[in-house]
């Protein structure tokens, strides 16, 4: 009798957890599907859909320079996915990818023993982990980024944390990204607080800000597929698959948060601090939008 009661209670608890877990995810899934659908429609046939999505782009340019139709996985290439001149230019640059040396450095750092004799492998026995970051840690009640995981590994092993955004930390993350290539992004929303963090990130993405009064959405959703002078605006879909990126402007690697902080500053807002709550929430939302897409990073950008 007691066994039966325990079984019933256990089953009902598991079912409740599953039902609630599904609920936490429901809004995000609805958003993601609409987001993906928007981009697929926009890039299905830019020539035929010119009036709706590209009214100011010359027809000649649409026919000559635009690559279409784009499928879901094509968006892994960011601005190179749709704009032929950029794609050709970067194909040449990537004959000898500038990120290769930093990735080699990252591998060396990954395997170099700490003072206690252990390596990063003590924390990451399987380095193909990037597809699950950032994730919401229900015990700590916060978003954990891959940069945080790297630094926490160092601290556990008695080392000083690295500076976020670039340098050695970006190199180790780039090595982990290479090891995770081909893995599908799999971000989860496990509880109510995670859903709130997702919503906060979503608001940061869509709400206009700064003295230019623009949002991430203005450039990377509504204007994705257009140019600012000679620069092709990248679609937000798939934006996190190429991270960390080697930017020619930076002359080195930078993490997703470094790029996002730069973008926020470009709106005329104060630059958010690395690993600040809002920046982590923005990364959480944006990565969730590309759920199911294969990782491709690191890559090269202007």
């Amino acid at each position, binding site marked *: 009798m007691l066994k039966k009661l325990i079984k019933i209670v256990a089953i009902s608890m598991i079912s409740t957890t599953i039902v609630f877990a599904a609920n936490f995810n429901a809004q995000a899934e609805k958003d993601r599907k609409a987001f993906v659908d928007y981009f697929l429609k926009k890039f299905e046939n830019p020539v035929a859909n010119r009036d709706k999505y590209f009214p100011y782009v010359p027809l000649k340019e649409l026919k000559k320079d635009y690559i279409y139709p784009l499928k879901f996985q094509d968006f892994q290439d960011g601005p190179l996915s749709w704009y032929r001149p950029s794609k050709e230019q970067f194909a040449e640059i990537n004959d000898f990818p500038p990120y290769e040396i930093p990735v080699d450095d990252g591998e060396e750092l990954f395997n170099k023993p700490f003072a206690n004799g252990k390596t990063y492998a003590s924390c990451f026995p399987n380095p193909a982990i990037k597809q699950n970051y950032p994730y919401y840690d229900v015990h700590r009640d916060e978003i954990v980024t891959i940069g945080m995981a790297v630094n926490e590994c160092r601290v556990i092993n008695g080392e000083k944390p690295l500076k976020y955004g670039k340098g050695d930390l970006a190199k180790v993350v780039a090595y982990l990204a290479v090891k995770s290539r081909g893995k599908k992004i799999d971000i989860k929303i496990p509880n109510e607080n995670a859903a709130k963090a997702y919503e906060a990130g979503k608001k940061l993405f869509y*709400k206009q800000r700064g*003295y230019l*009064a623009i949002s991430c959405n203005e450039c990377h959703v509504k204007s994705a597929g257009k140019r600012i002078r000679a620069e092709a605006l990248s679609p937000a879909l798939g934006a996190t698959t190429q991270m960390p990126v080697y930017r020619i402007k930076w002359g080195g690697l930078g993490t997703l948060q470094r790029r996002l902080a730069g973008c926020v*500053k470009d709106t005329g*807002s*104060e*630059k*958010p601090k690395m690993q600040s709550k809002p920046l982590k929430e923005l990364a959480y939302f944006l990565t969730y939008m590309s759920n199911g897409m294969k990782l491709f990073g690191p890559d090269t950008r202007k």
Partner: protein
Amino acid sequence: MKKLILISTITVAFLAGCAMNNPYASNGVDNAIANAQAKYNKAHSQMVAWKNTKKVLEKAKKLAKSNPKKAIALANEAAYEAQTALDQSAEFEKTWRAEVPK
């Protein structure tokens, strides 16, 4: 003479009106800086502050003793920016959801 008095009165009234019309103007340099700091802190805590506001405010603090007139002008500029950022944020709070693809 009457004409001169009339013109002077109108000019003084106009200038006084302009001064009173600036909602962010403060009298003393300390008041101006405190006002700007409070508004900046609020905008910063909501993560909506503009990127130059802090710099302008810091410059005002530096000039507080050596050039109070300039310091007040800078503090008022910082206060104006911070308040505009807060107003802008409140306005966009009502509209951002309409931007989400459906």
